[in-house]
């Protein structure tokens, strides 16, 4: 896509993910704001020492929430819900012991952790997933309040907080879903329009070829007829015949003749890479992308596909096996090859002892890149992280880089 319009699926994923992020932020704000209320309310009741355990539980939930934001994986969210359930239940029970009347007049104080539990729409990349997480959070929150009513022998009173929050969450995700549906219908399909543009360009190219051919043959021949002597020599007659043959064959219009268009503004590969990286980021792997230079390099489509797939496999390895939460992706451009270096500071491994069934490394990275004429180099030591350098050949250079790379890197 050359238009600087973000692909709609990428934009939708980022917007939905950002809504999930604001859920984390509200959850954290709710927990923080509960602390002064706990302190003052217990102090007014003369039970200040009873405040420390509930405050500790609020802090535990905050730390758990921070962990979820850091890891952002399904198991981390599940762990947060379990920890949150226990912390919320214990928090309410502890406060009810210190403030028995709170169940009647101060439910707001009691249900703060339960409200934070509802705001667990994490890792939601689609509105449907967001709705699922919100409902799950609400169920866990309600279960916590129910456990309090059973264990504390008090009436079941969840309060309005969790309900209001889940209603707002559902309204937000449903609105987002509706917006995305309308968007798919109303926003111009840029890729379709580009394909049409390419077809028109192909038509123009064919017209140019025809014009050139007719000019070089028919028009010149007619000029010969106008200016030649009354009797044509054998050479002139042969030329006329040859030109007519060229026109009747019209090979330049063959269906097999392709028009190759290269646009230096093309961002389709960049979009594919960013789409890939965005997916890993929502799964809990922070990916920092760096690159140098301002040259423009043309790749073969098949090589580009292998490149993106191998990069995905390398990042998958970091996510699944390294234990690291950050990966560095550095793109280095040279006239003959583009190299991507994927580095992590995880547990590392001994490349000599990689099992043959480690398809991620051998089949998904090495075989892919080598099949398109590229090279792969792996550096890793147990305990010292891993670096994978994948180089792929460049078909041509559309614009030279202004300064030598070694100067920049140095």
């Amino acid at each position: 896509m050359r238009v600087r319009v973000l692909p709609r699926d990428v934009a939708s994923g980022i917007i939905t993910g950002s809504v999930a992020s604001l859920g984390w932020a509200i959850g954290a704000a709710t927990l923080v704001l509960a602390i002064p209320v706990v302190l003052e309310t217990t102090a007014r009741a003369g039970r200040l020492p009873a405040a420390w355990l509930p405050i500790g539980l609020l802090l535990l939930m905050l730390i758990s929430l921070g962990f979820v934001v850091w890891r952002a994986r399904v198991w981390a969210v599940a762990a947060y819900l379990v920890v949150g359930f226990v912390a919320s239940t214990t928090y309410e029970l502890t406060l009810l012991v210190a403030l028995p009347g709170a169940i009647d007049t101060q439910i707001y104080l009691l249900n703060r952790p339960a409200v934070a539990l509802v705001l667990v729409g994490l890792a939601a990349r689609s509105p449907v997933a967001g709705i699922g997480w919100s409902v799950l959070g609400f169920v866990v929150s309600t279960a916590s309040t129910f456990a309090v009513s059973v264990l504390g022998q008090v009436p079941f009173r969840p309060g309005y907080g969790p309900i209001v929050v889940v209603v707002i969450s559902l309204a937000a995700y449903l609105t987002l879903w509706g917006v995305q549906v309308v968007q798919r219908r109303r926003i111009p399909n840029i890729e379709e329009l580009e394909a049409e543009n390419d077809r028109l360009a192909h038509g123009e190219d064919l017209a140019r070829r025809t014009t050139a051919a007719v000019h070089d043959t028919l028009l010149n021949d007619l000029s010969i007829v106008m200016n030649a002597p009354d009797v044509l020599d054998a050479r002139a007659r042969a030329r006329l015949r040859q030109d007519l043959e060229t026109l009747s064959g019209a090979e330049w219009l063959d269906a097999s003749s392709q028009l190759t268009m290269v646009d230096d503004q093309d961002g389709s590969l960049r979009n594919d890479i960013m789409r890939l990286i965005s997916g890993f980021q929502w799964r809990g792997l922070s990916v920092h992308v760096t690159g140098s230079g301002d040259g423009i390099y043309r790749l073969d489509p098949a090589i580009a596909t292998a490149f993106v797939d191998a990069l995905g496999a390398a990042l998958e390895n970091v996510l699944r096996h390294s234990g690291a939460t950050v990966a560095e992706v550095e793109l280095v451009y040279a006239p003959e090859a583009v190299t991507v270096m994927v580095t992590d500071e995880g547990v590392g491994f001994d490349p000599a002892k990689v099992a043959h069934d480690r398809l991620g490394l051998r089949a998904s990275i090495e075989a892919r890149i080598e099949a398109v004429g590229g090279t792969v180099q792996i550096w890793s030591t147990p305990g010292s992280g891993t670096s994978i350098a994948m180089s792929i050949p460049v078909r041509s250079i559309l614009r030279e880089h202004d300064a030598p790379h070694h100067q920049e890197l140095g």
Partner: protein
Amino acid sequence: MARASATVSAQQLDPLSWFTGRVVPLVFAGLVVLYGAFRIPTWLTSPLPWLQPVGVVLCAGACVLVYLLTRPLRPQLGWGGGIATVLIAGAGVVVSSIGYSGADISIELWWAPFGFALALASLAPYLSARRMLELGGTSAVVVTVVAFWLVEPDITVWGPLSSMVIIAAPIVCGLVAAVTFSYVLVSRMTPIIEQRSQMVLPRETTDAEAEQVERLRLARLSARAVPFLAGIAEAGRITPADRALAGQLARRLRDDLVTQSNLTWLDSIAKDSRLVVIDHEHRAARMRPAQRVALRSLLRAVLDTPGADSTSLLIELRGRPDGATAVAVSMDIELPEGRRIMHLAPYYLTLRTAVDDLTWDATSLSFTSP
């Protein structure tokens, strides 16, 4: 990067999403009304119950104002729009506070801070994180203090600190949500949109239909000349009549070829429609693929607009001294303004990403192709 993430709004970065996403403030207005109505029983306990619906209308109105201020083709929402929104919503909170002054209410269920929070949140896509923080932070402090001052003396269940925190909590959450949303979204989108790709892929196109059309054109062009030249080649002799006919055929053929080589991609649209193209300098050929795609999609959308007079669509391209191309498009569309804008805005917004100085009024559009 961090600075850019805080100073650019989600709408600036991705206007197409917020063209359809602008219903969000309306949904928030609906939530304000819903929650306000849910608290109707408490209205009646206040000395001035009629102030509560006024407050609800003000807070919901603030959300509606955001909706109106962010209509497609309007200027970017700035300080003015943001301040107007928080002033109206803040007035709603103050009116509600005055209404509840002297009444013993459950502040934790008070609708007004919640309404103010939603009004703040409705600004999130349209203001940068920093502006949101400055405007929202200031207004949150002012509104909380005023509401606390008006309502707190009548609160018995909570202490003063708790009352302050409980009043502030929804507002703080709304502000935190808006700032987080804006910052996270912009910081994730910016690298994708701003970084120019250094790797490009060639696209190979074949179109059998276009090739067939071209074969027909070739057959038409050569219909008279080919048999004539074949006859000359066969006979090997040229008569004065042959010379005259050759001259005539050559003139026609040259005219046809010149006409064809002067055609641009814009003329190919004009051929299938009644678009009038004025492009004496063949500037259309200089436009980049992205600009062609965006402009062509807009022209198609205008031509497909119900109520559009397709004969009135005119596009003129002129070179400027700095080498850029000035493009003017005029059209005559009978659709009401709202429907016209909603129909054409996505195409306009797409075009805006590919050209400079784009302006649009009721019947014309102009931009510069760098």
